[in-house]
């Protein structure tokens, strides 16, 4: 079985003053280059499928310039088996998906995993375009995935918002785009990282591809939000340093320790728990 994972090396802007509004240029010092976190989740899911089903080949593919090789190498370090780069420098999602569709069609596929969106352009279009061009079903923003390979079926769960979820069943081959909640990506071991540096990246030239059509969309204007008064986040000072750091790092809303005290079970068990708690706290 072949699992294709589409990855992208993104330029993540961490400082709001990075873009010069007059020229539209981005200050490279205020940007970092990294593998798109949504794609990282997709890679992790592909490796997990390989680990549980066995006999799978995970192929990481990326359309981009030389910097895209970093994304591929990271995906390889995480556990992908092959790296393929489409040499293309543009940003148009329609065109990219056209190229990807051709390349993936040549490689062959059973499952395609894409990140839900990239964290630099926030378009979220490539996955959908790609499914369209390959004429396969697509489930977007999945948070849980179950495979039934004997029946050539997959069941994916996705968020609807407000806590609602739906389960979607579809036939293979299929394209999924992944939500961050799908899994917790692994940290690559050193041996794989060093191997990634040595392993050959397959390079496909897009010149031979048919989809040389113009992009369907065009960016005409860019604007930034009005500057807001800066709010300094002050975590609850009763928390420990680690919890406060965690809160600061996640921007608040970290899990509080008391939340895990919600009880569950039969009425007998509940009564037991409450009694134990009362004795433990020396209330009775």
């Amino acid at each position, binding site marked *: 079985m072949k699992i294709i994972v589409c990855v992208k090396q993104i330029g993540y802007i*961490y400082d709001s003053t990075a873009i010069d509004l007059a020229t539209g240029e981005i200050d490279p010092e205020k940007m970092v280059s990294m593998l798109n976190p949504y794609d990282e989740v997709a890679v992790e899911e592909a490796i997990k499928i390989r680990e549980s089903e066995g006999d799978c080949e995970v192929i990481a593919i990326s359309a981009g310039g030389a910097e895209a090789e970093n994304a591929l190498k990271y995906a390889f370090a995480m556990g992908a088996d092959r790296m393929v780069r489409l040499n293309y420098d543009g940003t148009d999602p329609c065109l990219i998906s056209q190229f990807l569709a051709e390349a993936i069609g040549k490689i062959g596929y059973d499952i395609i995993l894409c990140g839900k969106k990239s964290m630099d352009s926030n378009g979220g279009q490539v996955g959908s375009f790609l499914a369209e061009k390959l004429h396969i079903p697509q489930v977007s923003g999945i948070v849980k995935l179950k495979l039934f390979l004997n029946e050539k079926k997959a069941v994916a769960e996705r968020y609807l918002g407000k806590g609602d979820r739906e389960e979607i069943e579809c036939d293979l081959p299929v394209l999924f785009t992944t939500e961050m909640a799908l899994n917790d990506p692994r*940290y690559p071991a050193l041996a794989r990282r060093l191997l990634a540096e040595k392993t050959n990246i397959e390079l496909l030239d897009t010149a031979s591809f048919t989809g040389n059509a113009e992009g369907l969309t065009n960016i005409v204007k860019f604007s930034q939000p009005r500057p807001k008064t800066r709010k300094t986040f002050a975590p609850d000072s009763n928390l420990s*340093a*680690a919890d406060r*750091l965690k809160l600061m790092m996640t921007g608040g809303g970290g899990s509080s320790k008391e939340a895990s005290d919600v009880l569950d079970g039969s009425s007998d068990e509940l009564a037991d728990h409450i009694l134990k708690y009362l004795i433990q706290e020396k209330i009775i």
Partner: protein
Amino acid sequence: MQPMNAVKSLIIFLFFIFLCLSSAHATEYYSFHVAGSDCTMCHDDPASGELNDTGVEFEENGYRFPITQKEKLFYALSGLVIITIFLGIFLRYRLWSRGKPGMKIDRLSKRWDGLFVNVFGQDKILKKSFAGHGHLLLVWSFTLIGLAVIFILIQEYVVLPLWGVRIIDNHFYPYFRLLLDISGLIGLIGAGMLAYRRYVLKPKELDNTTSDALSLLFLVLVFFTGFLVTGIRNQLYGSEWMCWAPVASSLAWVLKLFVKGEDGLKVCLDALWWGHAIIGLLLLAYIPYSRLLHAFTSSLNIFYRNLEPKGALPVLDISASDTYGAGRINDFTFKHLLELDACTRCGRCQENCPALISEKNLNPKSLVQKLKDHMGNVSAKNNALIGGPVTNDEIWECTTCLNCIEHCPVFIEPMLKIVEMRRNAVLTESNFPSEFKQIFKNLEIFGDPKGKGRVTREGWASNLKINKIYQTGNDTPEILFWAGCIGATYDERSKNTTNAVARIFEKAGVSFGILGKEEFCCGDPARRIGNEYLFRQLALKNIETMKKYGVKKLVTHCPHCFNTFKNEYPALGADFEVIDIFEMIAGLLSQGKLEVKLKIDESFTYHDPCYLGRYNSVYESPRDILKSCLGVNLIEMDRIKETSFCCGAGGGNMWRGVSTGKRMEGLRIQEAVNTKVQGIVTACPHCDIMFDSAIKQEGLGYTFKLINLIELVKQAVL
């Protein structure tokens, strides 16, 4: 193992074997030829000098004592004992040699110095007075008896056959006799002290096993029977040297009260002689199979001790390999495995370990012992350490505070074993607490643990005009001031501290610059968590930047950065000088470049940060600044300087937040509050963050101050 190292270690090893054999032989010789021989054996009438039969035979044999049945039996037993000792040590040696090479035998004179100071001088052991002195007596007793024995051996096998001269003659013998008597006495006292401590005082860092009891019992019995044998013989044969063996003679005199007649004494003598011989041999044979082996292994370990700066972790080769660090017992180096056998379970590491004191799972002593047991279990040699003898909690609870290494009397390094296991967990298994994943990614992508990004690194300096080295071109300032991640990016309190350093330097007219956005994390968090690869990336990037700007001197207020630059960067090719900021400020104050305008007339206590104190032995300059320059009434806590308690931040634990046991920072603040001062002075941004939360958690936010020493200096001089 490299061939040269193998040869050298074999030589040392053989030397100890030789000592062992010679003491076995010499004990036997001593009992026959010196303690037992008085003139009446060879001369019926010593005054006339005529030889009797024994004497004649003795002379004909080239002064070799004729061997009787009793002696044949004794020699056979001795032979067995020697084989047993040899086998025992060899078996242990084989276990150690399964490890990877990694012994360093450079700076030999320094090694020998250390060996003498710590084995015969008992330097580190004496830091605990009672136990130390007990042990000192025992060691010296054995050393003196050993020296006497070697002396006898030289006389018997070298001097006598070659020149036919006796050094130990009638004039010399009494002094010799007295020396041995005293040696025996101090040994007995030493053994008694140790037994008293172990079984009456019962300090909680000691755990008692049968082996401990047996070893002590053997020691006491050997001394005791030795005295009795000498004493009774003197009584029986009326030696004129009775008064030269006061202890032996007195003991024999007591025995004589209970045993009637010469025949009774002779039976006693025979029984006691055999008792002494057998217990002595048993003791020797027992050495390699008990804690007594530490006489060899600990001495070896002291000789081979780590002479690198104690703040530096060993460099890990990160070229392609199947495994990094220690995942299995044989991934440890020879030295690490030797250390396991050098441990005497004295418990000084656990007594000072903040993880154990705060009731967590980690106990450095039991960690070493568990690894030792695991090493002995050869069939399990390919089992993973984590999940086997060691648990995940244990290795991640360590705050790398260095207490265990600092206090080990025989230079065992439990923390380095933890670091090796962490390296394996991170680099090979990629199985570590998930909180670290984000730290690693942030360090790799953004260059600081929290992912704030490099341009934010100049925010703290926005109200000051500071040279940024990348702007000054060729005109590089003399000193580079390194702000560090905490002080530059994410902690408001520490940003103020960083700002304070710059303002103090400005005031004192120091020519300095900062790297600003070209600064990256020094790599300390990554390295202590075990990610050597990331550390190397960051360190090489920083070294490259500093070389580019020709940085000659660097100063930083973060002890973690300080330690990394000073002790760890040189191994990667850095060649700049790292200045201790407190020494520098103390210097500026004493030179009059800084003037104290406002005396701080308050009482404070000072917390030694691990990475400043234990790691780099900076204890006095912060205290000097506090007391003599700022006029602070400094009241010390119980645990200061070498025994300073950790705030709980090191080894990545500030970002992780260990949930087991009590909070280390809380314990430390409680200790500070108990000194009845107005506040605690720290010298490390990590400690600041930890204590800040602890003070608030204890509800002391309005009554107990927390202030960084730099801030205090700023208040006084500006």
